[in-house]
């Protein structure tokens, strides 16, 4: 009975939050003050405020997790773990600190933990659904709809994603945040807890490795044609 009541309360809170979220202007959602208020309320035990935090950040968290882990289910599990960890350590968050930077650092750490659990290599294959979605997206693009070309493109993209997964964890995190999530070098450094110079070095090394993979692909493509 208590569980049912709790579930209903969560659903009601979700409806309320969704409505409230839509009423808020986008600028206020992105502002640091927005998170400052919500974090203060969540620390006081306000679950609705915590759900608002999730609503405002979940897409970015899931996106980072998916790019880091390359798997939809792992991304979902990692995102859950991230928010549970955020709730657990909300008391340690210092007022005035960048909440999103703190959140993304937790996300990266959780993804590292997941990759470590999966195996030392960190190589995880993107699941077939995501792969087909990507292929469908490419199909609608400027490329030809020739089945043979599509298959080659799919192979190309899969290899590039595999290349990303095969990078060392720190380089992969730096590259995902900088090139795929569009963070500035300073933001990446803050999220990773390192210096901008280190981030530049990691990003440069990661780009060189990805380029090497792409060169191999180009050579294969040229040989196939």
């Amino acid at each position, binding site marked *: 009975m208590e569980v049912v009541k709790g579930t209903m309360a969560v659903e009601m*809170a979700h409806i309320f939050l969704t409505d409230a979220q839509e009423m808020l202007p986008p600028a206020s959602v992105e502002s640091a003050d927005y998170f400052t208020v919500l974090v203060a309320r969540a620390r006081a035990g306000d679950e609705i405020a915590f759900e608002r935090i999730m609503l405002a950040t979940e897409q970015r968290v899931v996106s980072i997790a998916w790019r880091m882990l390359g798997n939809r289910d792992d991304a979902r599990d990692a995102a859950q773990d991230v928010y549970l960890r955020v709730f657990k350590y909300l008391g340690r968050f210092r007022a005035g600190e960048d909440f999103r930077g703190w959140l993304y650092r937790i996300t990266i750490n959780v993804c590292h933990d997941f990759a470590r659990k999966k195996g030392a290599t960190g190589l995880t294959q993107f699941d077939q659904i995501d792969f087909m979605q990507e292929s469908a997206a490419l199909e609608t693009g400027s490329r030809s709809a020739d089945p043979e070309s599509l298959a080659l493109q799919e192979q190309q993209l899969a290899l590039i994603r595999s290349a990303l997964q095969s990078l060392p964890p720190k380089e992969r995190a730096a590259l*995902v945040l900088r090139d795929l999530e569009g963070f500035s070098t300073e933001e990446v450094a803050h999220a990773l807890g390192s210096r901008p110079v280190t981030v530049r070095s990691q990003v440069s090394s990661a780009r060189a490795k990805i380029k090497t993979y792409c060169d191999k692909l180009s050579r294969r493509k040229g040989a196939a044609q």
Partner: protein
Amino acid sequence: MRTLNCKRAARMISLYVAGDLVGAPEREVAAHLAACDGCRRLAEEFSESRSLLTEACASPEFGAEFYAGIRHAVLGEIASDQMLAKPSLFRPRWLYATAFAAVIIVSGVILQHFVSNRRQSTDVPPVTVQSTSQPSEVPSPRKKHEPGGAPGAQASKDPALANPHGSSRHFAEARQPDALLSQAALLSAAQIEPASQASTSLGPVALETSSQISRIEIQTADPNIRIIWLSPQESREPDGTKHDQDHPETGNRK
């Protein structure tokens, strides 16, 4: 502005194509690329691989249900954790803790009682009360006013006044002065009948009764301290009631 060689420029091109260089380094690389065809081709390859990576890792649409599932799971987990964190006497953890604390307290009380008993038994010698009067002559104070009551039968009902050794009466071991006083008071309250064979002090504690005054002497653990209890003989009223006037006194006797 210094000029870059190709080796040094190649290391900076990957940063240049993504806009990571600012100021002088950016201008140096731009100048080198303008002059070097090989490095310009390298920069194009970097740009292409970067766009390929962006294309390959474009985040798919997960859908509202996917995110709602995450929120549901997280909030449910938080709610269950908070329920578990609430202290309650009926939760097993608290129940075990309470039971453990109760066991500790009871054990402590029992141990303390046992230790104090042992200490008393080793420190103070037993004290006995002796009297020459017959047990049947010492009726129970409660039974005293009962008309027609048999004194012997009443005395035998009182375990404190029972006489296991015939003429001498051994009380339970009273090892402290307070206990001795209470024993003496008990004896005084027993309203010992004055007897012609008045008791004399035969041991550490003695009862003496005369026709006028009942005298109780109690020897404490300290040989220099003896408690003497003088109790006037009870005067019986015609209606059977009595008036007790006890005058205990203590004194030192060398």
